[in-house]
């Protein structure tokens, strides 16, 4: 498992709708800030890259010293699943993204969930963390 990993879902309006520090490293308060900042800045790169490829998984689009940003762009709503990580396990990250995407779709199917609003389901959170432990 990666020591540092910050996972975030960004809606099509660039609003973060879900975020989780999923790294094994002990949580540092200030790290969350930095991770958010790095992921936010990486949106600039995603906006350029997303339309150049038909693949959903954009690996390693941005590097910040030792940290790498991988992104998975969903096809329909242009929701971006972003992961800041220090591991190099591309296959694991890809699987992680795919499974989280499925989870996200399930959330979208919930009639009480308004697309684009924050995902507050604790079930979703638990599942994402379990997936992170499994793949990252």
């Amino acid at each position, binding site marked *: 498992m990666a020591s540092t990993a910050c996972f975030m879902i960004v809606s099509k309006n660039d609003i973060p709708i879900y975020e989780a520090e999923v790294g094994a490293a002990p949580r540092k308060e200030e790290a969350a800030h930095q991770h958010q900042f790095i992921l936010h*800045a990486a949106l600039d790169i995603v906006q350029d890259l997303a339309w150049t490829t038909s693949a959903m998984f954009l690996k390693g689009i941005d590097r*910040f010293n030792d940290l790498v940003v991988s992104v998975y762009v969903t096809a329909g709503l242009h929701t971006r699943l972003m992961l800041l990580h220090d591991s190099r396990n591309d296959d694991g990250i890809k699987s992680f993204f795919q499974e989280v995407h499925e989870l996200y779709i399930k959330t979208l199917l919930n009639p009480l969930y308004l697309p684009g609003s924050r995902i507050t389901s604790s079930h979703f959170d638990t599942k994402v963390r379990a997936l992170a432990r499994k793949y990252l």
Partner: protein
Amino acid sequence: MANFLAQFQSIKTSFDRVIIAVEDVSDLWPLVKEGFEERLPFKLGFLNNKTRNAVPVDELPVEYILTTDSRIRSRFPQEQSLFWFREPYATVVLVTCEDLDEFKTILKPRLKLIVQNDEREWFVVFVSKAPVHNDLATKMAKKVYAKLEVEFSSKKRERCCKLDIHGPDANFWEDLELKVTECIRNTLDRRIQFYEDEIRKLSEQRFMPIWNFCNFFILKESLAFMFDIAHLHEDSLREYDELELCYLETVNNSGKQRDFGGMDHGDDQAAVLELGKKALTQMVQDDDSFREFEFRQYLFACQAKLLFKLNRPFEVASRGYSFIISFSKVLALHESILPFCMREAWVINACSALIDATSSHYKDGLVAADVEQEFYRVQGDLYSLCRTKLMRLAYLIGYGSAIQRSPVNSASLSMLSWPKPAVWPSLPPDASSEVLVKEKMILQEIPQVKHFGIQRKPLPLEPTLLLREANRRRASLSAGNVFELFDGRANATDGSALPSPLPKAHAISMLRTNSSPGNFESMIDRPMRLAEIYVAAEHALWNTISDADLKKSLSSIEEFEQKYLELSKGAADNYHHSWWKRHGVVLDGEIAAIYHKLGNFDLAAKLYEKVCALYAGEGWQNLLAEVLPNLAECQKILNDQAGYLSSCVRLLSLDKGLFLTKERQAFQSEVVRLAHDEMKHPVPLDVSSLITFSSNPGPPLQLCDGDPGTLSVTVWSGFSDDIVLESFSLTLTATNSADEGIKALKSSNATTLKPGRNTITVSLPAQKPGSYVLGVLTGQIGQLRFRSHSFSKGGPADTDDFMSYEKPTRPILKVFSPRLLVDLAAAVSSALLMNECQWVGIIVKPINYPLKGAILHVDTGPGLSIEQHAIEIERYDDGSCDSCDFGVSEGSIDCESHGSAEPKQLTLKDAKIELPDWASNVTSILWIPVRAISESLARGTQAGAAVSQRQSVVEGLRTIALKLEFGVSHNQTFEKTLAVHFTEPFHVSTRIVDKCNDGTLLLQVILHSQVKASLTVHDAWLDLQDGFTHTGKGDRRPTSAYFPLTISSKSRAAILFSIGLENALIKNQVEAVHPDSILNIQYGISGSRIHGAHTPMDAEPVASDDSVKQLNFRSSLALLRPVLDPCLAVGFLPLPSSGLRVGQLVTMKWRVERVRDLGENIVSENNDEVLYEVNANPENWMIAGRKRGHILLSAKQGSRMEISILCLPLVAGYVHPPQLGLPDVDEAHISCNPPGPHLVCVWPPTISSSYCIPASA
């Protein structure tokens, strides 16, 4: 071959164009030189590159050099092959000759000699000096030239051309250029081939021990250089790329420990764009390779030069950026041998150099948009890389306080490892004063306290504690004690120390004593303190850095800030140009922080606003929380009240977890303070994110047209404490019609909002029909006029939902079009008992409208009164419950399922009934006890006589005027007048059934039941009028008493009385008492109030076994004394047997006979005359004769007279015959014997042919 490097470099610097040798055979060069050179450089040529593809060369600079020139002559053969690229690419042989013989004998052999000697590319230029007008000379020249062509040109290749000095020959120059280009091309091909072969040979030996990179380099670079001077830059670039690859391979593969380089003074200044900074000989090592540090920069410089020549500065930038990154990594590998912070200094320098060079070469708009975007992006990257490294250096020398601890800086610096020198620089011996200065600086440093007293852990600017890192790397320090290490850590600048003032003050005093100069020298071996580390680093840096600019930038905090600002601006601008707005805006925030610090609050606020707008727009609250307090502070200083308020409100509306409660309270108190005290004029402010509102969950408030109501609205307050709104108003927007406009609901009372959810009620005036949604909430807090547009925060689950405005708006109010809201109807249509206490049922049926709190006004009409009895109410079930309890004497439907909690008894107050709440939505039935009063006595009629039913109905009709007040505030009324029908239980009719011989009359009394209930007659008696008397037992009872007698609804029964006539004497005595006979009936009724008449309430049995209380019914009967014998008898004489026919006269005959004498009291003068009258329908009968007249009839008994009238029937069929009446005689005195027929048959007239009309007519 390394010896040649120096020569090679000098050749390269001095030699920059293609050389063409001029073999001046006939001393013509001075003559034609000018003409030749003025047409340089060549244009429009094609050269072949390495892959033999023709490449267009726009401009080819060429130099003509005479073969006699020293530059060409004095070369060793070895040199020639090595530096072949500088040999002439073509030889132009300049000849002239005016004589054929001379050509044959002298010129030709000489030319042959020149031409045959090697594989040089050559051609002959014949210069004709013949003047134009001299035909002979011209002719001769032509002849000689023709000979020349024959000799030297072949079919394959033209090697001659002719220049007329005096004649116009435009073609010559083109010809010459073509030929020269061809020669150059051929030579180039051959030389490329040569170099290629050589390089291949060397490449094959690459992994052998004898391999010498220098040789390879010289060959490869020669080839590259040759391409370069032939203006085949692209190919040249490719060679350099290959060379770089090859070099990296050898460097990485060779097992030898090689010198890296970079130890010279000035090496910190990157030579990425400077070719001549170091000579190649300076880079060489061991005669077979180059030092990496210098050589890689050299190669990059060569590539950059070519790229600039190719006009691709953007590629320089992007290659440069990746070069800097990769080279920085290489530097990191060798960091231990390099001077302290050499790497950082180099990167800063390289970035600046690259930025300057590329931006000066770059012209806007010449390239595709995406390339341009990429260029700016790389520029931005370069700037920000440079900026990061500069910050790192500044931090090392103690300027950390000047660096904003923002996420961007923190992320850049805290993940960037410290420089790793072999040994951390130690303090120079004479630096004690500097240490003092630094310490003073550390102490004087104002801890960064955010506005509003926001206390959050400052973001780190260092990967690990500098103190520990520096001491760990000090060679002289033997295993430092951790506590010792942290001796001086109370300095807040370290980032890890909590900014609590108390320990800090303590530390100050401690430090003062520790750092007194006296005992300084003895402390060499103890861990360095922070100030000492700074000073040591500064000294080491000054040794490393040779660049004056960089030195200057690091010389003081102000200079550093200046440079830092410059770099941040550069980065931000470029990122903005590249549309990387997030990167750009973040850096704008950094610039703003500097301006903020420098006191330029106006600019700072503007930039901060930009940052905040981005973060807020994209909902990145964590990041927003960092910047927003700064913006607020700037706005406060600028006295921008509206902006400041708005910032405070935005701070309050951020996620609650982002700030402490205390901080949030500070925000709120600022808002309140400003609103109430400071502001002089009202300031409008949008607080949509802070105060939100929505309708209450559940269905919208439903009102009918004209209904006022109370609207309940949920308001969410994001304030941390209670806040008082002096006033507020809500607008309602009609959803169905746009032109309806917006209604504002105002509440001028001060309202206190608790943090979180509040429910506010607003009184709502009557609205027009339609559906309404909430519009805008406005209000006032002090001088602050706030406004909130949000309306859909449904519940606590999505309080932090930024997208709530996308939710569909839920109507809060529905106002219906006018319609019937309720209906009142009488429950029973059949008649009730008159003069008894009866339940009248009123069905109250709400029609989709709640009747909560409705009040029913009951106003009874004349002849009807409400009894003092509880009013009952029950659920009405439209007949579905009827089957379960019909006939129940209580008359109330009491289905158990209806819940016993429903109140059933109501009281009438001031003719008003309040309906219970449970009945607000269900149809209910109200039972009101009433009594209809009728003074008149029922009258019996004679059997068979037509009874006017109508009359009795009208008499029994009573009205109840009802008025229902209902609606939210009793504004709706419904009025209805119900008609209730009352009746007596029986209708009585009589007839004399028989007249017995003894004068007894059998009187039959027929009782018609008038009600929809079963009546039981228990007893009946007849109080007779005068002139009649009961015969028999004399108990006034009927002859046969089969009581009780049950009469079911709407049926009849009869009882018989036996009466006789009374003699006259008694009659006179009691005349006044009994004008009419009275029938008394004692009866009982059993009926249900839901069907009609029923037992009166006061007659209901107390217990079930009690006999029903009997009711009384009285009816007057008019009995007539029997008629005496008639005086006259009228007989109708039979009609002729032939029958009657239309148009046939017939005689009607009546016989009038006096039956007895007229009574003595009938006094008349003309007793013997009787007036008669014949009545006939004139449509049926024509009467001939006297219809009315007197007949003479003697007064004696038995006299008779016959009246005959001639009649003519007019219509066929059964018609009434004419009747004879005697108007003067009372009908009672006339007996019709035999009586006349009721109808007679009249035949149609006989058919008469004389009336026939021929058919043909």
